[in-house]
């Protein structure tokens, strides 16, 4: 068994197990921490697949920025209390799990038909696609063939920042002006 196979067979059960554990947690903080574990295992898969730049980006952006944002909102809202197990729609849980398992089986059949379980990747990835290092090669592709989409993402980020400022500034003036919100504020105080 080679080192790459060993890494895969160590981290694949951790990845799937932490995702299932996230699903079963009733406490939102514990679910967020299991999701961080899952993001780290996915970053290890990126490293095995020769995407060392995305490995760093995955840890910085997902495990760093996005999960800190999630934990910040959980703490801000104080929704770390457990959710009720009461079903409003009868059979929703059973039906949801059945549909999820159905999607998994369908995807695995599609992988078997489209890729094949024994297909190996070409061995010369580091010489052909990753020539000069992954970061150098990916920047050559990103800033030549995908330069226009790259610039468009900057507009997207500005729009998202403006949207958040609008959403955050509105709730101070309007949200507190309805009677039920004032009652809720008085209740909280």
């Amino acid at each position: 068994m080679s080192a790459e196979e060993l890494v895969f067979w160590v981290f694949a059960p951790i990845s799937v197990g932490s995702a299932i554990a996230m699903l079963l947690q009733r406490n939102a903080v514990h679910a967020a921490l299991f999701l961080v574990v899952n993001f780290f295992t996915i970053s290890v898969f990126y490293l095995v697949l020769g995407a060392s730049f995305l490995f760093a980006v995955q840890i910085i952006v997902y495990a760093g920025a996005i999960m800190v944002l999630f934990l910040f909102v959980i703490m801000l809202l104080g929704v770390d209390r457990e959710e009720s197990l009461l079903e409003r729609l009868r059979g929703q849980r059973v039906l949801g799990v059945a549909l999820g398992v159905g999607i998994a089986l369908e995807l695995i059949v599609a992988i078997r038909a489209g890729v094949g379980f024994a297909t190996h990747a070409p061995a010369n990835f580091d010489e052909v696609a990753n020539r000069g290092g992954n970061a150098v090669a990916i920047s050559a592709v990103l800033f030549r063939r995908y330069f226009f989409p790259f610039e468009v993402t900057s507009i997207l980020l500005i729009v998202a920042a403006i949207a958040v400022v609008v959403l955050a500034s509105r709730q101070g003036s309007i949200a507190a002006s309805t009677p039920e919100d004032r009652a809720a504020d008085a209740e909280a105080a």
Partner: protein
Amino acid sequence: MSTPISYFLVVSAMLFSIGTIGVLVRKNALIIFMSVELQLNAVNLSLVAFSRMHNELDGQVLAFFSMVVAAAEVVVGLAIIVTVYRRRRSASVDDLTVLRG
């Protein structure tokens, strides 16, 4: 590279399905949102695996763009959840039966 590429795709399919079950079953809006993130990550993993299989970097660039869009989406989505929570005092999707803000 001795691990067949389909193993990564199977892990990706399993993570995507677990995320789907989370969206369908859970009621806390924040955990539903985390499940959506799990689905996005699963698809990113399959993009990187296909990039490895075809010996091209286009899949990695697409995964990079998807991370940028996911970051913007998380910021706006969490702001909406905070706004809804301020008004309704609840993050459970069972209590959000009307779209009126």
